[in-house]
């Protein structure tokens, strides 16, 4: 048996659809914890309203945000997985079909960067990155719609032999640039090293990690803890109108590289849209989040 074109087409469209209507459990838990620890009265109320919006979206099967972003997928290909048909085309075709059928309809967010014209289709859309998973016999799809609200504030800079102090100061610089504008409390992804593209990919992948999970690298676990405290000491707060909760998590990862070290920083807004599932050869879907 093999994984089919139709299976990939259906599942990737569903993952995008699901991600728009429900915020992940770890994120709701993060918001609830923040509500308990937040000392700023206005921020406490904004956090309550956020949780209320998330609940209402679930109960009424509504989009949490009217900006459904553009579909972004990370695909993990099991090295023992077998498939038939053009699974790359399946992701494109799945999105095209979803645009025709989804209720309520999506707004036109796919933007040609050369003309700023917006529609439902465009070059290289959906945005997909591909990785291999050693020994696995399945395909794993993660979906994270990205929109201007938080996507706009991602940044990268390349250093030569930076110290940890240099790296952390840069993260704080990017946090200051975003300020009140990225729908905080955010999830911050930081990618260090590799090459320019690898650092950005690492940062983006780091945002998928569940809130509250501990980085297996002790150096990074300590960095994440102190950066989270530092970001929350800025005072931007929920929706940037003041408070102790500017980020729910800072997730850092790295790759070895040359002495030139790109540092990439990206953000997910508080709704932290994210879904993930595995597709097995027998056609079964293992929904993970």
């Amino acid at each position, binding site marked *: 048996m093999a994984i089919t074109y139709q299976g990939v087409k259906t599942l990737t469209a569903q993952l995008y659809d699901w991600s728009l209507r429900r915020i992940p459990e770890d994120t709701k838990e993060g918001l609830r914890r923040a509500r308990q620890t937040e000392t700023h009265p206005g921020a406490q109320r904004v956090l309550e*309203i956020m949780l209320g919006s998330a609940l209402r*979206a679930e109960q009424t099967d509504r989009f949490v945000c009217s900006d459904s972003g553009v579909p972004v997928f990370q695909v993990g290909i099991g090295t023992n997985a077998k498939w038939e048909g053009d699974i790359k085309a399946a992701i494109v075709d799945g999105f095209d079909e979803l645009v025709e059928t989804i209720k309520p309809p999506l707004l036109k967010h796919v933007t040609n960067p050369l003309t700023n014209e917006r529609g439902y289709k465009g070059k290289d859309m959906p945005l997909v990155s591909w990785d291999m998973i050693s020994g696995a016999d399945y395909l794993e799809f993660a979906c994270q719609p990205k929109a201007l609200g938080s996507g706009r504030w991602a940044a990268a800079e390349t250093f030569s032999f930076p110290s940890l102090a240099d790296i952390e100061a840069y993260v*704080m610089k990017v946090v200051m640039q975003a300020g009140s504008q990225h729908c905080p409390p955010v999830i911050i992804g930081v990618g260090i090293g590799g090459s320019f593209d690898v650092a950005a990919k690492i940062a983006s992948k780091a945002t998928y990690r569940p809130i509250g999970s501990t980085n297996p690298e002790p150096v990074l676990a300590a960095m994440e803890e102190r950066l989270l405290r530092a970001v929350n000491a800025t005072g931007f707060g929920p929706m940037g109108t003041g408070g102790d909760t500017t980020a729910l998590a800072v997730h850092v990862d790295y790759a070895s590289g040359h002495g030139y070290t790109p540092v990439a920083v990206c953000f997910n807004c508080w709704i932290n849209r994210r879904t993930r599932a595995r597709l097995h050869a027998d056609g079964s879907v293992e929904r993970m989040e």
Partner: protein
Amino acid sequence: MTLTEYRRVTMPLSREDARSLRAGDMVLLDGEIVITAGLPTHHRILACMEKGEAPPIDLQGGSLLHLGSYSRDAEDGGLEILYMNPTTSTRFNPLMPRLIRHYGLTSVGGKGGLDSACREAMQDVGCVYFSFLGGGAPLHSAAIKAVKQVAWNDLVAHYRLVRVAVEGLGPVTVGIDAHGNSLFENIAADATARMPAILEQLARDRAGA
């Protein structure tokens, strides 16, 4: 805090109501608002202004909120909005002072705030900025009572200029008041002032790690 405890204000705001609000206040909105999430829409309004023409929806003394919506023709021949949510206001910074002054707007809004030039224009005319919850589409959409008017239908849905009747929209935070106070500028200034101490704390944490 339950919804009944929030102050309710009628939209479009009277000049007096606008001046009665203070940065940090949280309120619910009732009445009529004018919304758009489009940069091209702002350019068209400015073009109307320059030509001395009236925009298709009257803005004089009214609101212009950075909210995007999906509107379509309803089966009963009217219009319906399927969902509505704020967009980032700061990208309209260069355009807003002229619009605020020319139309004497009493409220603007969206998310993320506006800059100091906008804050000055708002103080001059008596206008406030409402910060809406991003990711609040289920709540904001439920407050819609009727779509009164949709203009510039050639634009994508969220760029159209739309007049909407709402009831209990919010709670929204007064991010910038009509007296020159901006939460956004104050918070950014505080964060900037605090940054040397934040970086020193990071250094101490690294040394202790």
